[in-house]
């Protein structure tokens, strides 16, 4: 037993070193005074200041956040509707095609999604004059489409776990289907809806390939900006930007993790007290 354990533990150590050494190296070099990315030239925070005074970066960040906010919200609404429908209506006309449509974007290579969306927008513009120009709208539409299916997957899985009779109870007590959805279904699966939103938000914020195909001149998102810089090589200001992004995510995940842990512990305590009160 012991020997097997030490092998697994060393594999874990190796794996986490593999995960984090590149990121740590990137963080360290973001404080490098030298312009040459791989030669250490002393400690400096100048790249951070350069970053904050770079209007291009800030504009791109704002645009990315706007697109992510809008697309994640609409994707969550559409995706949750599809997830609830697939979990609650076992048979309806066209269900097979529908379940295919919510799985296909998950396995479709991004390049293909990208070129198909672009051809679609160009041909639509040619045929019906819409969309007039590519930019915020087209990118947002493409993001909604490929991130909503992730929400669907999460919501559907959660719905299949939840006790169907809770919804029946609400219906039995006089609620019409839409009231049941508002009063019971959505509150009960709200954690899944929230994690679906978060996932859709990150997917949108992170996307390069589909955005690069569907965007137009003047609409550069943050990943597109990084993409165009990184293609030319390693630069210290990207190190600084990466460090900031990693820190924000790490802090967010840590806070969420601690909050979830606390909530779980409180719930456990409640249940123990209820058990004792019952005697």
């Amino acid at each position, binding site marked *: 037993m012991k020997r097997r354990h030490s092998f697994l533990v060393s594999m874990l150590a190796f794996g986490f070193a593999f995960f984090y050494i590149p990121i740590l190296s990137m963080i360290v070099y973001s404080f490098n005074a030298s312009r040459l990315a791989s030669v250490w030239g002393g400690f400096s925070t100048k790249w951070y200041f350069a970053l904050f005074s770079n209007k291009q970066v800030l504009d791109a960040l704002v645009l990315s956040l706007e697109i992510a906010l809008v697309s994640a919200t609409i994707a969550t609404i559409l995706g949750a509707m599809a997830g609830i429908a697939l979990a609650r209506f076992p048979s309806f006309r066209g269900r097979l095609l529908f379940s295919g449509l919510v799985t296909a974007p998950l396995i479709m290579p991004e390049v293909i999604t990208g070129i198909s969306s672009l051809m679609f927008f160009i041909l639509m513009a040619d045929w019906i004059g819409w969309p007039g120009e590519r930019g915020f709208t087209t990118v947002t539409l493409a993001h909604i489409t490929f991130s909503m299916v992730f929400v669907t997957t999460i919501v559907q899985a959660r719905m299949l776990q939840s006790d169907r009779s809770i919804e029946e109870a609400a219906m039995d007590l006089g*609620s019409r289907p839409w009231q049941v959805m508002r009063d019971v279904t959505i509150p009960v699966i709200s954690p899944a809806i929230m994690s679906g939103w978060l996932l859709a938000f990150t997917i949108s914020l992170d996307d390069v390939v589909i955005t690069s195909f569907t965007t137009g001149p003047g609409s550069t998102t943050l990943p597109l900006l990084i993409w165009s810089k990184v293609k030319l090589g390693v630069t210290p200001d990207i190190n600084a930007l990466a460090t900031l992004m990693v820190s924000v995510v790490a802090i967010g995940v840590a806070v969420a993790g601690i909050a979830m842990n606390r909530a779980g512990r409180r719930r456990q305590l409640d249940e123990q007290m209820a058990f004792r009160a019952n005697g």
Partner: protein
Amino acid sequence: MAAAGEPFLRIENISKFFGPFQAVRNVTLSINKGEIFSLLGGSGCGKTTLLRMLAGFEEPSSGKIFLDGRDMTGVAPWDRPVHMMFQSYALFPHMSVEKNVGYGLKHENMAAGQKAARVREMLELVQLLPYATRKPHQISGGQRQRVALARALARQPKLLLLDEPLAALDKKLRERTQFELMSIQQRTGVTFIVVTHDQEEAMTLSDRIAVMDRGEVRQVGSPGEVYEFPNSKFVAGFIGSITSFPATIVERQAEQLRLSVPALGGEVMARDVPGLAEGQEATLAIRPEKLLISKERPEGANAFQGTVKDLAYFGKDSLYRVVLPSGALVQAHAVNARRGGEGSRAAGWDDRVWISFAPSSAIVLAG
């Protein structure tokens, strides 16, 4: 209102198919206002499907349901004056106890103060007033069951459906809760329909029981009727335990039957059952507690000698398995009335004993 003589709830020739599978077969039942009526049967007997059709979650494939004179066909679950207590209780996990109880009142045209008073009244009824602001996961299983009951009663339904109301409780709590349910039913006067697989639960709770098997109702009657006068081998075997033997009817006398029972090695006198003819094949069934066991030959008919093969001591009573000369086994329960060691028992292993029963205790079933 229902016309005089019309039952409060009438289930008429209800059948339900799920694809090729028939879950409920041509069930007809009449249920009176204010009674506790149980649907009793094993899993898959169709009792839950029948309950779900009453609640409106399933539409019958054929047949009709009349509640208080109104045809319920096509009436949506949310429009039915019928509420249900779910087996899992189905409490809304994100609402407090009082919000749960008050949920149904949202759809009622009542002043806010009236609603609050009604919730209070319900919580008092189930003795949960101190827990009003707790969430379902903060209370015990027994308390959750009472919240579910209060919630289903809050809108004053004409009919309350209870799906295995006691199944999730432990044995001690179950006994106490049984009596609570009965007293709440008496105080509110609501008609209860209980689905259960537990025959003891059905016997104690109900005014009348319908025993179901494979989608069909096999017998309807009071607990005493279905126990003492089962109409079939299935009902006799499902409720309580039974020992049964093939028999032939030899003679019909005044209110009595004489049967030949080869397994017992003789003839048996039993109370007359209408519809049986001389010479017909029948089944003789006897409940273990109706069998008397003694070392000396008792007076009267229906006494047979055998040997104690096995005995199980349960404390308040003992179960004897007596083997007869024909090789047949008979089970007999005897109360251990006296206190003491070995001597307190009526008989020990390998003792020669007499078993006997009164003619009125013998159940004779056709076939």
